[in-house]
């Protein structure tokens, strides 16, 4: 399965990318829509020069979800993207085997998908399980693909606090798109209707572990209480009357500006925020 570097260099002019897409759920209305991160993954695939993205969906496909899936096709106006492969599965099927088989048959060099689904378990495990099954490396939370050259992808990984980390990985690989990736383009109606859904009938394996789960609408989480372990009335009174986070700080008075600056710099260095 591992493609050697030479064959990749030859086929670099048409890098094959598979984008795994799912049916999302609008957070307010609850209606089916294109999943946000999956759409960002497709947008990322468009951003790679000379790439030919193929769309792949595994799961049940009824009318509302078909409309949602066509939204991805609607993003392909002006590109070669005109079809979406649907691996039809039952609603509670384990889609990993079907997806892995299809990807093996398709043989893409790069697989892109969102970080987590918006429906179902939404565990975010799918890309990892696929990577483990195919034996490919996986990079997660990608904000931008900088370059693909001689079979090596250089990408920026989104970290918390707006930070970025540059990673390089050898193809074939799986990459997941972060919510910090560039916003997806709008979906146009014409290409969405013209595009073809190619149904591929594969057997679906039941996900047995899920049978015993109880799924309910999300409850509001209890607010954490401030636990006061006071032994005397005075301590309890103090805890109840205390202003939050009072005192404890160091106050420096009558310092020269240089000494004050040094004290501040020492703290900044200790915290490691200075670069």
């Amino acid at each position, binding site marked *: 399965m591992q493609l050697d570097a030479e064959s990749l260099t030859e086929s670099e002019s048409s890098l094959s990318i598979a984008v795994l897409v799912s049916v999302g759920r609008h957070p307010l209305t609850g209606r089916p829509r294109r999943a946000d991160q999956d759409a960002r993954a497709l947008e990322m695939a468009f951003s790679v020069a000379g790439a030919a993205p193929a769309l792949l969906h595994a799961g049940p496909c009824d009318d509302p979800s078909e409309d949602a899936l066509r939204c991805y096709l609607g993003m392909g106006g002006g590109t070669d993207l005109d079809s979406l492969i649907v691996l039809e599965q039952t609603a509670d099927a384990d889609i990993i085997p079907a997806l892995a088989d299809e990807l093996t048959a398709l043989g893409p060099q790069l697989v892109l998908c969102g970080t987590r689904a918006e429906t179902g*378990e939404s565990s*975010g495990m799918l890309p990892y399980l696929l990577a483990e099954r195919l034996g490919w*490396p996986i990079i997660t939370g990608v904000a931008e693909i900088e370059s693909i050259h001689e079979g090596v992808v250089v990408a920026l990984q989104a970290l918390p606090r707006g930070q970025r980390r540059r990673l390089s990985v050898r193809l074939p690989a799986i990459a997941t798109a972060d919510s910090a990736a560039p916003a997806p383009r709008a979906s146009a109606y014409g290409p969405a209707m013209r595009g073809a859904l190619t149904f591929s009938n594969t057997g679906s394996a039941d996900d047995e572990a899920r049978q015993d789960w109880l799924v*309910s609408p999300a409850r509001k*989480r209890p607010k954490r209480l401030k636990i006061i372990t006071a032994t005397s009335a005075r301590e309890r009174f103090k805890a109840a009357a205390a*202003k939050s986070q009072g005192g404890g700080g160091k106050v420096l*008075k009558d*310092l020269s500006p240089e000494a004050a600056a040094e004290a501040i710099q020492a703290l900044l260095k200790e915290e490691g925020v200075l670069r």
Partner: protein
Amino acid sequence: MHNDNDSLPRRDPRWEWIARNRLHPLHEEALAGPATVRLNAHVWQGPNGLTRRDPHQVGFIAASGLKRIDRTGAQGATELNPPGGRKAATADARQFVTIDDPAFIVAVVPDLPGGRLSSHDRDLFGLARQLADADPDRPGAVLAVVFDELREDGFADAGADRLLHHVERASASRPATAYAAETRLGVLADVERELSPRHWLLPDSATGGAELGRRLAARLGERPAIQVWQIENNDTGLRCTGRGAAGATDISRALPRLVLALPECAEPVARTRHEARPLSLSLSEGLAYMPGRIQNLGAVAVDPAQVALSEAEFILSAGRGVRDWEGFHKAAAALGATEGASRVAVDDGFMERDRQVGASGTWVSARVYIAVGISGAIQHLQGIQSCDKVVSINLDPDCDIIKRADLAVIGDAAEILTALVALQQRESKSHAA
């Protein structure tokens, strides 16, 4: 009479009665009397064993001319408000727990952002203790697996019985550019093979736990419970509840081996201390390590001005006290800090509206927040509630932000910022040289 060798405190009821009776001719003598009568003149043990205080002997004369007794302890010790009665109990009341022969192991892999335990990590240790101490006859041990350099020594307080500290060394087979999640995964797989913990707990956080936990789940072939916020022990065994469908549903299921938990999944450990005994794996070079196919090419310089205020790690914030705005912007650029502002600075037109920190602006969560010329209105203090370290540069030593600040410098903001910039430039020059 009282015998010095006698350990029992002896009381003399007659002298106690005289000491309480201000009209008694021997009253003064009794107050100044021997230690057997009273520990202090104003505190003594009453007949029922309660501590009694003489209100005439304590307190101070307030500015209003009235006598006041301060029970909060906020007032410093004065002649009339002696410190005797209000010593805080400093003795550590926590129980020290050692588990020598654990029945099983609960492994916790904390995130340690910046080398320190986050509150999420502490909650996770609390959860691990719940699982380890579920059966008091057969207690388990909580193992903390930590990597790289540490700036934290509070694992014993956090609730770890064992501590496995793995330091990554660059070598021929492990280049320095190895991707941390992959090398750590190799270590965790070694831990799994050698100690086979009953449960693995990781934080479901963007700082690394979410990725590492899912990689571990795929490697071990375990189906993890993700976004767990509650674990209950009922008659059907341990069950956990986690969020599904991107937070829209709750999924309740039997507790699996691998759990990725949300913040506030349990109370942090407060009543016990643990030993955090260092532990090492017998395999020095992990077998599970695969030569990394992912190269970490390092952090990318991000323009701090482009970072959203709510996400920024290091904020330099300006208020009414700033006069030299050019110097302020220069300082922010030199320190690499994101700029923030108080409401006054925004209203006066010195800063953009999207830079406002506080109740009507952005609630920030910076690790270091420097407030320059900000007095600390309550709305502003609300906005910086979740900041770790607050530094204030201010002229007024009595304003509210001084009480919140971890380091408060009283002085002229412009001069101090100029000195800070000069210091920083000197340092970067010596680095470059």
